[in-house]
C-alpha cells in the first residue's frame, strides 16, 4: 500500500471524506455521477460518500469513479443515539459492518420484526452506540459535524464530558478515529468551536481531520438543495428561509482541494489527515457480493447431485423415461456448466419457489432467457421445450465473467399477480427475514414530480402545479423546463419574464436525473446464505416488505444474482377461468396440454377478435395480426416479439408481414443464415438469432456470442457494441466458410445487427408469452364465459376496462348479468342458462362502486352464514350503511327481490334505518318513475363502470343517423380512402413514443370498435377533444389494408350527451 504521507505529497492536498449525494434523499442534490465528475474536474484523487443512512449511491459512484479516475470511499452518516457521526469503510469487513449498521438503523431489531407493524422506523434511522461498538472493525469513525454529540458538549462548555466521550470512542476505534472539524464561514462560534475541537483532539491524542460535508456542486444544485430542504420541513421556500432551515450560505458546495488548502492555511494537519484516511480506506464492488443462498439438500447429496436428480426426474415427466440423445446431451451440457459456475443452489432456490407455488395451486411460469434452458424446463420452472424449439442455452447462461465473477443467470418467474405475495412470504420464511429482501427501484425525477415538487416549494397552489405537470408527463425535468419556458407557464397564467418564475423554471431543470424515492421492484428477490444486510443495506417498505438499497442495474454491476418473482395478470386470469370450467364441467383444463393446432382459435386470432387475450390484444397487435393471420403457435411467438418499439422503428413489421403472407420471398445474405433466419422470414427478430449469426459466421463460442449480445439493447453501451461488431466483422471475414464472407457482406451483416441491437427480443421470452397468449385465445373460443370471468376477476390487468370487456363479451354471445346479492358473489360467477354449454356471466359485487373491501367483507361474512332472503335481510345482516345500500340498489344488486332499482333503494334505506325492533318503521309504498333505457345504461356506468343493458352510444344513435354518421359495422363495407364521419365513446387513447406525436383513439359503439388516427399536426388544435372528450365525432378518410381499418381524422368534435361516469384508458 502506498503510504498515506506519500499520497498526500504526490496527489491532491485534500480528500473530501464526507460528500453527500441525492441518495441522502432530501439532503443532497447531485447524482453520484455528477459528484464524481465534479470531483475529478476539481482534481481530487479520492472522495468519500457519506449519505445519510444510505449506501444506495455507492455503486453508481464507483462505476463513475472508474471512468473518471477517482477513488471512491464508501461511507455513511448515521444517527448514533440521535446525533450524527460518519463512518468510512477501510476494508471488506469494514464495509460489511457499515452495511450492517445502515441496515440496523433502517429496520431495527430483526427478531422483533413484525410485518404488520411497519413504518415505525421509516424516516428516523438510528443506531445505538452499543451497535456501533459491535460493528466497529474495519471502520474509520469521524466524530460528526457541528450538530454531532462531541461538538455539542464542546459548545456548551462541558470540557470533561467531551474528553470522556472522545476517550470512549478511542477505546473502541483506536487509531481509526478522527475528530471532524468543518469551517463553512457561518459565524464566529463556528470558528471558535473548530478551534476548541482541535484542542480537544490534541488533549485526547486523536488526530483531527478537516471535512467539508458538501451537499451540492454548483449554484443550481444549491437551489435544488434549498427546495428539497424546504420540502423536507414541509414548508415553502420563503417560509424555510425565514425559519432558518436552509443553509445560511452556499458553502456546502464541493470545494477544490486547493480552495480547502487556502481555507485551512496554517492548520494543514487536518488536510493531511484527510488524505491519510483516504489512503487507508479502500473499496471494491466485490465487497458487496453476499454469499449465495445455501440450499438445504437431503443427506448424502450435494447441491449439484440433488439438482441433477431433480432435473432427471423432471425430464422423465416432460420427455418420458427414455431421453433422446439431443435431450440428454443438452441436460449434461447445462448441468456441467451450472456445476462449474457453482449455481446449483441458485437453480434449486427457484425450483423450490415453483414447487411451493404449485403446491398452493398458484399458476406460475418462467419467462425470459430462462426458457432457453433444458434444466429449467425439466425443473418445471419454464414451459418451453428448448430442445424441441432449438433455443440457444448460451443466451441464458455462459461463462462470461464480469469483474472476475460469472454473471448470474437471469431467471424470471411469473406468478398469478394477486397471489405473488404468498410466494414472497414463503421466501421470507424459508430464508429468514435477514437473509432475503426485494430489489429496490430508484424512481428518478420525471417532469411531473419535478414540476409538482418545485411548485410546491415555491408556494404555488397544488391544483395549478397538477394542471401543469399533467401536460408534461412525457418529459424529463430538463425538457419540461424548456416547455414550461416556451409554452406551459404562460398558458397557466405565469409570467415567464418574472424573475420568480425564471427561478422556478431553473429549479425544475435542476431536478434532472436526481433520485426521488426508492420503491419496491416488481419482483427481484435477493437471497443470501448470511444476513443480507451485511452486504446490501436493507430498509423497510410501507407494505411490510424489506428492500435492499440498490436497484437492478446496481445489482447487475455488483454481480448479485436476483430471483425475479413477478406478478402476471394473465396467469391469474387463466387460473380463475380454469377454476370456473372445473366447477361447471367437472374437468380442469391443463394449460400446457391445450391443443396447439386448434383451428377455431387461430381463426379468432386472425380476425383480430383478441380483446382480453394476453399480449395480442392491443390495437397495434390486432392491426398486425389481421394481416399476418397466425395459423400456428410460432406465428404467435413472432407476433409477441414483432409489435414492439424496436421492430416498428426499424420498419421490419411490413416486410415480415409481406413475406409471411407469401407476397415476397425471404432473402438471405449468406447461405449460413438460412437455417437461422428462415423461421422469421429472413428477418432477425430474436436475440438468439444474433448470437447464432455470430456463432455460424464468425465462429464464436456460445459465451463469446453472449458477450456480443450483452452489448446490445442499451444506447449507453453503443461504443461497446461498435467495437464488438468490428471484432465480429474481422472474425467473419477470417472464418473459413463456403462461400466466404466478403468484407462488403460482413459490413452489411454488422449493420443489420447494429439496427437490430435496439429491439432484439429473446425468443425464449416470446415463447413463454405466446403460450399464455394462445391459452387465453383458446379459452375465449371454447369457454367464453369463463374467459371473461377470468379476466374480470383478475382485473385490473390488460388493455381494456371492464366496460369494454363486458361489451365484447356480449358481442361474443355471452349473457352478462348485473351483480346480485341473491345469486351472485363478490367476484364474477357463472350461472346456468338453457344452453348448458353457454353459461351466463354474473358480475361480482366488487364491481359496485362504493362497495369497498370492508363492505365486501361484511357481505361475504353475512352470506357465509346463510343465503340472503330479502333486501332487509341483506341490510340487517351485513350492517350496510345508507350509502352502501344506495350503491347496491342503484347497481341493481337487489333485483332478485325488487327489479326496480329505486324501489329497492326505498326498501333498503328503510331497512338500514330501522334499528328499533319495538317500533319498526312502516312499509310505505313508493312509485317512482321507471328508468328509461338510456338512463339505465348511464346508471350502470355510474354504479359499476359498465353496462349489461347496452352501449351509451345508443342514446346518441338517432342523432348520429340524422347526421349520416357511420357506425363500426358500416366501416367494414367501406373502401380505402373514402371520406367518412364516425362517432363513438373513447375507450383507449395511445400516444406511443414511436408514433412521433400521433395519437391513436379507440372508439367504441354498440357494434364494435373504430380505430382513429389523429395526425400529429392536428393534436394541438384539437387537444381538448382528442385528449379529454368522452364521446367524439371524427370526420376523415378510411385507411384500409385488408381487414385492418382505421379512420385518419381531419376534424374532431366532442359530442354532447348525458354525462357518463367513464374514463378512457390512456397509454403514453
Amino acid at each position, binding site marked *: 500500500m502506498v503510504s498515506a504521507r506519500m499520497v498526500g505529497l504526490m496527489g491532491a492536498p485534500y480528500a473530501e471524506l464526507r460528500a453527500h449525494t441525492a441518495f441522502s434523499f432530501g439532503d443532497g442534490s447531485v447524482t453520484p455521477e455528477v459528484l464524481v465528475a465534479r470531483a475529478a474536474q476539481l482534481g481530487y484523487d479520492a472522495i468519500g460518500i457519506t449519505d445519510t443512512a444510505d449506501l444506495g449511491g455507492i455503486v453508481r459512484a464507483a462505476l463513475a469513479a472508474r471512468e473518471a479516475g477517482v477513488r471512491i470511499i464508501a461511507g455513511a452518516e448515521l444517527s448514533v443515539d440521535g446525533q450524527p457521526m460518519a463512518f468510512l469503510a477501510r476494508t471488506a469487513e469494514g464495509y460489511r459492518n457499515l452495511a450492517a449498521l445502515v441496515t440496523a438503523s433502517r429496520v431495527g431489531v430483526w427478531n422483533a420484526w413484525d410485518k404488520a407493524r411497519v413504518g415505525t422506523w421509516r424516516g428516523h434511522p438510528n443506531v445505538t452506540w452499543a451497535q456501533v461498538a459491535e460493528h466497529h472493525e474495519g471502520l474509520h469513525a469521524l466524530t460528526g459535524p457541528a450538530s454531532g454529540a462531541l461538538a455539542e458538549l464542546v*459548545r456548551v462548555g462541558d470540557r470533561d464530558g467531551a474528553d470522556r466521550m472522545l476517550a470512549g470512542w478511542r477505546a473502541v476505534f483506536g487509531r481509526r478515529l478522527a475528530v471532524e472539524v468543518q469551517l463553512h464561514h457561518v459565524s*464566529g462560534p463556528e470558528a471558535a468551536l473548530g478551534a476548541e475541537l482541535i484542542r480537544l483532539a490534541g488533549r485526547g491524542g486523536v488526530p483531527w481531520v478537516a471535512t467539508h460535508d458538501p451537499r451540492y456542486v454548483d449554484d443550481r444544485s444549491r437551489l435544488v438543495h434549498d427546495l428539497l430542504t424546504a420540502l423536507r420541513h414541509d414548508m415553502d421556500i420563503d417560509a424555510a*428561509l425565514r425559519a432558518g*432551515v436552509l443553509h445560511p450560505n452556499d458553502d456546502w458546495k464541493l470545494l477544490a482541494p486547493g480552495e480547502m488548502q487556502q481555507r485551512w492555511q496554517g492548520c494543514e494537519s487536518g488536510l493531511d489527515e484527510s488524505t491519510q484516511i483516504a489512503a487507508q480506506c479502500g473499496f471494491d464492488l466485490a465487497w458487496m457480493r453476499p454469499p449465495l443462498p445455501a440450499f438445504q439438500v437431503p443427506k448424502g447429496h450435494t447441491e449439484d447431485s440433488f439438482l441433477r436428480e431433480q432435473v432427471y426426474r423432471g425430464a422423465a415427466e416432460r420427455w418420458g423415461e427414455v431421453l433422446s440423445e439431443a435431450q440428454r446431451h443438452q441436460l449434461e451440457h447445462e448441468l456441467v456448466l451450472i456445476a462449474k459456475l457453482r449455481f446449483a443452489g441458485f437453480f434449486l432456490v427457484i425450483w423450490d419457489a415453483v414447487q411451493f407455488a404449485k403446491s398452493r395451486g398458484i399458476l406460475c411460469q418462467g419467462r425470459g432467457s430462462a426458457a432457453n434452458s433444458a434444466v429449467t424446463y425439466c425443473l418445471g420452472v419454464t414451459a418451453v421445450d428448448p430442445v424441441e424449439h432449438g433455443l440457444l442455452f448460451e443466451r441464458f447462461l455462459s461463462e462470461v465473467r464480469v469483474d472476475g465473477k460469472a454473471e448470474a443467470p437471469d431467471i424470471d418467474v411469473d406468478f398469478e399477480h394477486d397471489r405473488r405475495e404468498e410466494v414472497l412470504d414463503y421466501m421470507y420464511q424459508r430464508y429468514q427475514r435477514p437473509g432475503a429482501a426485494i430489489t429496490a427501484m430508484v424512481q428518478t425525477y420525471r417532469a411531473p414530480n419535478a414540476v409538482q415538487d418545485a411548485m410546491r416549494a415555491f408556494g404555488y397552489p397544488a391544483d395549478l402545479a397538477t394542471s401543469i405537470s399533467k401536460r408534461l408527463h412525457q418529459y424529463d425535468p430538463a425538457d419540461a423546463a424548456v416547455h414550461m419556458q416556451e409554452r406551459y407557464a404562460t398558458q397557466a397564467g405565469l409570467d415567464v419574464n418574472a424573475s*420568480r418564475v425564471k427561478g422556478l423554471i431553473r429549479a425544475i431543470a435542476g431536478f434532472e436525473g436526481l433520485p426521488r424515492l426508492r420503491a419496491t421492484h416488481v419482483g427481484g428477490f435477493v437471497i443470501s446464505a448470511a444476513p443480507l444486510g451485511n452486504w446490501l443495506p436493507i430498509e423497510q417498505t410501507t407494505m411490510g416488505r424489506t428492500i435492499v438499497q440498490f436497484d437492478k442495474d446496481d445489482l447487475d454491476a455488483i454481480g448479485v444474482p436476483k430471483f425475479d418473482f413477478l406478478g402476471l395478470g394473465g396467469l391469474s386470469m387463466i387460473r380463475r377461468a380454469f377454476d370456473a370450467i372445473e366447477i361447471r364441467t367437472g374437468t380442469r383444463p391443463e394449460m400446457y396440454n391445450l391443443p396447439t393446432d386448434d383451428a377455431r382459435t387461430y381463426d379468432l386470432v386472425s380476425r383480430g377478435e383478441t380483446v382480453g387475450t394476453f399480449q395480442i390484444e392491443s390495437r397495434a397487435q390486432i392491426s398486425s395480426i389481421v394481416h399476418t393471420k397466425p395459423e400456428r403457435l410460432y406465428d404467435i411467438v413472432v407476433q409477441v416479439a414483432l409489435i414492439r418499439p424496436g421492430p416498428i422503428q426499424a420498419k421490419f413489421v411490413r416486410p415480415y408481414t409481406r413475406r409471411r403472407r407469401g407476397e415476397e420471398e425471404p432473402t438471405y445474405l449468406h447461405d449460413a443464415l438460412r437455417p437461422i433466419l428462415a423461421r422469421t422470414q429472413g428477418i432477425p427478430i430474436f436475440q438468439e438469432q444474433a448470437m447464432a449469426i455470430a456463432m455460424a459466421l464468425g465462429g464464436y463460442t456460445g459465451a463469446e456470442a453472449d458477450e456480443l449480445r450483452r452489448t446490445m439493447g442499451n444506447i449507453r453501451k453503443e461504443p461497446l457494441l461498435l467495437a464488438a461488431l468490428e471484432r465480429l466483422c474481422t472474425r467473419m471475414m477470417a472464418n473459413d466458410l463456403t462461400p466466404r464472407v466478403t468484407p462488403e457482406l460482413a459490413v452489411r451483416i454488422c449493420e443489420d445487427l447494429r439496427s437490430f441491437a435496439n429491439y432484439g427480443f429473446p425468443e425464449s421470452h416470446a415463447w413463454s408469452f405466446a403460450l399464455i397468449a394462445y391459452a387465453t385465445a383458446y379459452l375465449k373460443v371454447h369457454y367464453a364465459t369463463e374467459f371473461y370471468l377470468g379476466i374480470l376477476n383478475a382485473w385490473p390487468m390488460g388493455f381494456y376496462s371492464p366496460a369494454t370487456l363486458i361489451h365484447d363479451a356480449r358481442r361474443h354471445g355471452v349473457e352478462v348479468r348485473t351483480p346480485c346479492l341473491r345469486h351472485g358473489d363478490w367476484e364474477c360467477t357463472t350461472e346456468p342458462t338453457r344452453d348448458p354449454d353457454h353459461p351466463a356471466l354474473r358480475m361480482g359485487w366488487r364491481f359496485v362502486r362504493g362497495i369497498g373491501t370492508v363492505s365486501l367483507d361484511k357481505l361475504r361474512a353475512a352470506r357465509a352464514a346463510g343465503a340472503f332472503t330479502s333486501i332487509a335481510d341483506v341490510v340487517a345482516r351485513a350492517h350496510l350503511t345508507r350509502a352502501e345500500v*344506495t350503491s347496491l340498489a342503484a347497481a341493481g344488486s337487489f333485483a332478485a327481490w325488487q327489479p326496480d332499482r329505486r324501489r329497492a333503494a326505498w326498501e333498503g334505506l328503510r331497512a338500514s334505518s330501522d334499528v328499533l325492533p319495538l317500533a319498526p318503521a312502516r312499509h310505505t309504498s313508493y312509485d317512482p318513475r321507471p328508468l328509461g333505457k338510456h338512463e339505465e345504461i348511464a346508471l350502470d356506468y355510474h354504479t359499476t363502470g359498465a353496462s349489461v343493458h347496452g352501449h351509451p352510444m345508443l342514446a346518441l344513435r338517432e342523432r348520429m343517423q340524422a347526421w349520416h354518421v357511420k357506425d363500426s359495422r358500416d366501416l367494414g363495407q367501406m373502401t380505402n380512402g373514402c371520406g367518412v364521419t364516425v362517432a363513438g365513446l373513447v375507450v383507449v387513447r395511445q400516444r406511443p413514443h414511436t408514433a412521433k406525436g400521433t395519437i391513436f383513439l379507440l372508439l367504441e359503439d354498440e357494434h364494435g370498435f373504430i380505430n382513429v388516427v389523429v395526425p400529429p399536426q392536428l393534436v394541438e388544435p384539437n387537444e381538448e377533444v382528442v385528449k379529454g372528450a368522452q364521446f367524439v365525432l371524427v370526420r376523415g378518410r378510411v385507411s384500409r389494408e385488408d381487414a385492418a381499418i382505421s379512420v385518419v381524422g381531419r376534424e374532431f368534435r366532442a359530442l354532447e350527451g348525458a354525462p357518463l361516469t367513464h374514463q378512457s384508458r390512456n397509454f403514453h
Partner: protein
Amino acid sequence: MLWADGHGLDAHTLARNTLQLIRNRGTDDARAAVAATPVAAELAVVFGAVGERGVAVVAPGTDRAFTALFPIEALDPAPRLAPLLAALGIATCGDLAALSHESVEVRLGAEGVALWRLARADDRRLIFSPAPRELPHASLDWTDYALKDPERLLFSINALLTRVCGALAAEGRGAHELTLTFSLTDRGTHVELLRSSRPTANQRTWVRLVRAALERIRLSAAVTGVALHASRVAARDAQQGDLFDRGFTTTGAAEDAVARIIEDQGEHAVVAPDNSAHPLLDERTTWTPRAPRAPHAAPTGGKVREAQPAYAAQAALTLQLAPVPRAIAVETAPRRDHAVPVRYRDGGQWHDIAQVAGPDRVSGGAWDPDHLHAREYFRCVTREGVLVWLFYDAQAGAWYLHGWWD
C-alpha cells in the same frame, strides 16, 4: 345575495327600487324576486322567470307549487344526501315534497327532513335579525341667528349632552364616541368625532372634550344648528387605561385594552414583532398587525429550527443596527481564502481596524431577486476601540457599515 325584509311594505315596489339602486351602481345583471318564503324567493331570483322590470314574483300562497317544479339540486342538498336522492329517483323538489315526513325521516335522516321542508316551501331559516336599538341622539337648530362664539356653542351643546348622557345613563351604558355635526350658514356641515378613553355617560367629561374640540377646530362659516349622537357605546363597567401601564396584571385586561384600541383605531393599529431565523439580521423582524386573543401565529407550514445554544458567553454589548446599511469605502488585505478589511472610511474619516473576525457568509435566495443575497460580514475593532459590523455585498460589489456594538 341581498335580502330585504318587506314585511308591512309594498314588497314589489321595494324589490323594484332596490334593484334600481343596485343598477344605478353599475350592476346591470342583478335580479330581484318577491315571495312569501325565503326558499321560494331564492329559487325565483336564481332560476325563476324574470317579471316586470327584472323582478320575479311568486304569487302569495303558491310557494310550494312554485318550488315543486325545480330540480332537487336547486336546493343544494348535502353531499351525503345527493346519492341517496339519486338512488331513490327523487329528481325534483316536488318528488321529495310528495313523500311523508316519516318515510323521509327513516330513509334520509335529519338532513333529509330539513331538505324535505325546504322542498315543501316550509322555510324556517331566520333571515332577518331584530332591528338594533337606536343610539341616543339630540339636535338643535336655530334660524334667526348664527353662532360664532365658542362659549355660546358650548352652552347649546351642553344642553344636547344633558339629553344624550341622560339617555346613556338610563340604559347603563357609556359612549366611546360622540359625533358632533355642525350645520353652517354656507349650507355646509362639519362633522367632529369626540372620543373618550373609556365608555362614559359623564356629562362633565364630555363637556371637557367638547370644549377642547371647540378650541381646536376652525369652521368655515357660522353655525345654525348642532346635532349630537352617540356613535359608539358600551357598557359603562368596561375597563380603561394605558396599555403599557404596569397595573395590567392579567392578560385578559391587556387583551381587552388591545381590543379597544383596535376597535378605536382600526385593525392595523396593533402590531407585533414577528421574529424569524432569516439569515440576514435586518430581515429577521417584521411587524405585523395582530388581532387580540389570536393565538401566537406558528411559522407557516412547519417547525422553526431551535435556536443554537450559544457556544461562547453572550456578548454583553448590544448590537445597534443602522436604519439602512451605510455605504463605506474599505481597504482590504488577503487572508487565507478571503479578504479582510483593514480600514474603512465613513463620514469622510478613515478608521483603522485593529482586529477583525469573520467572514460570516450569508447567501441564498436564488429563487427570487427579492430574496437574493450574498454578504460577507466582519466584526471589527477599530483603533478607537469601537466595535463595528461591516459587510461586503457580493451582489453590489460594495462595502457597508451595518451597525456597531455599544
